[in-house]
């Protein structure tokens, strides 16, 4: 049986791993290649690198980080942050990334997803979605150019929805995040990296309702992200959120719990994991 994946996430700023709360208040958590090597050794199932700042040298730094990590880690690596076009994607893949995640550029230019999937394969195109709870009336479907409030068919018995954000959570789009996930998959994304902005860094647990809503609607794997504070939260992401993978940062970076400890706990509660 396919194992559920545990994925430590390395948010990288100016060449260092950092971790914040609700996308701000950053703390230093080490050198990316060293941190990655430690997780590789501990049996992390994959690694995700996200460049969280928009500095001009961002791409150069990330390519250096990817190359250094690929030297030392023998585990799948997803890289994202500031990826704008096919040339960026190709450069990251050549530097050793196995998958590249798109966020802002995909929203601004959805055809980039299709072009990248055709060129490099859906299996290496991850759609990163930053979503925040909002009143249902605030969002519209990404396929329509019309006014808000045309998402009745999707969440009939709840009054809230999730709004899609871009630019590292700084810009709201007015788009329905769940509908965007569906569209992104239709365009060729092979996986969804779904971050709850309400929960990110809070350690209050994943937004399970959001996770399940997306996981039930798309035919590709969904990585739950934002809010992991305990092993119980990881369990819930799989058991309640129906996620295929759970991403966490703080709990692993600051060594509150190790990857093997988390997996042993999950196996004990009946979740299939690779020990």
């Amino acid at each position: 049986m396919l194992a559920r994946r545990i994925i430590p996430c390395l948010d990288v700023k100016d060449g260092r791993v950092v971790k914040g709360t609700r996308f701000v208040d950053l703390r230093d958590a080490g050198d990316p290649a060293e941190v990655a090597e430690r997780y590789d050794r501990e049996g992390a199932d994959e690694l995700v690198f996200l460049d969280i700042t928009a500095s001009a040298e961002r791409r150069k730094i990330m390519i250096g980080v990817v190359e250094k990590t690929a030297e030392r880690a023998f585990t799948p690596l997803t890289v994202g942050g500031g990826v704008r076009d096919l040339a960026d994607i190709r450069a990251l893949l050549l530097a050793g990334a196995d998958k590249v995640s798109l966020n802002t550029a995909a929203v601004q230019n959805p055809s980039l997803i299709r072009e990248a999937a055709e060129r490099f394969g859906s299996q290496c195109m991850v759609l990163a979605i930053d979503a925040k709870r909002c009143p249902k009336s605030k969002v519209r479907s990404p396929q329509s150019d019309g006014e808000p409030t045309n998402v009745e068919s999707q969440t009939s018995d709840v009054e809230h929805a999730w709004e899609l954000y871009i630019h590292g959570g700084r810009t709201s789009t007015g788009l329905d995040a769940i509908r965007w996930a569906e569209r992104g998959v239709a365009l060729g994304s092979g996986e969804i990296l779904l971050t709850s902005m309400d929960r990110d860094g809070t350690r209050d647990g994943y937004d399970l309702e959001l996770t399940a809503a997306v996981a039930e609607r798309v035919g590709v794997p969904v990585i739950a992200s934002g809010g992991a504070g305990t092993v119980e939260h990881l369990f819930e992401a799989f058991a309640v959120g129906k996620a295929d993978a759970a991403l966490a940062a703080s709990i692993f970076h600051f060594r509150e719990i190790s990857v093997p400890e988390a997996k042993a706990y999950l196996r004990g509660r009946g979740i299939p994991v690779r020990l």
Partner: protein
Amino acid sequence: MIAIIDSGIANLRSVQKGFEKVGVPSRVIKEPRLLRDAAAIVLPGVGAFADGIATLETTGFIDPLRQEIESGKPILGICLGLHFLFSESEEFGLHKGLDLLRGRVRRFPDTVPSSDFGLRSSPLKVPHMGWNRVQQRRAAPIMHGIPDGSYFYFVHSYYVEPVEEGVIAGITEYGLPFTSMIWRDNLFATQFHPEKSQALGLQILANFGRLAHG
């Protein structure tokens, strides 16, 4: 020296780094004539089947590769490199492969029968992505020292269906049981990625290196 065939956009660096880590000399090659001096050959691959085969054709790799395989040189196909060895693939239309192994490359179904007597179907997420177990059908030399049922890293939407059951060396379950490893004489191929499968994956590369260098 192990030759790693450059078939276009594949991430060859990780395969080469894997061999480096286990102390096996390897080299990424773009020229078919270099196959001859290699002790063994790795045929990696990501991306689409038709593009990959077309690239092998235009770069002139197909005939020399066939000759080297027939001469008994050890070869390791990885992922799409496994698919290339088969007769044909259903990926985006029907395309011919190298036909060294008889059979077809097929896509995973979008739904599979549920456990409730198959009366309903449940959705199957495609691509098959992540760590899954390989049940060893036969003791392939590249699996030396690797426990049966170990986890390896997969990422693919298509799988191979060999006509001859005798070439199957490993089986994995994802919605249905599929062939995850092939072994026939000097020909080895894995659906999973040894270069991305941490310690046990590196063990496979080391085992293959030993086959090449004795």
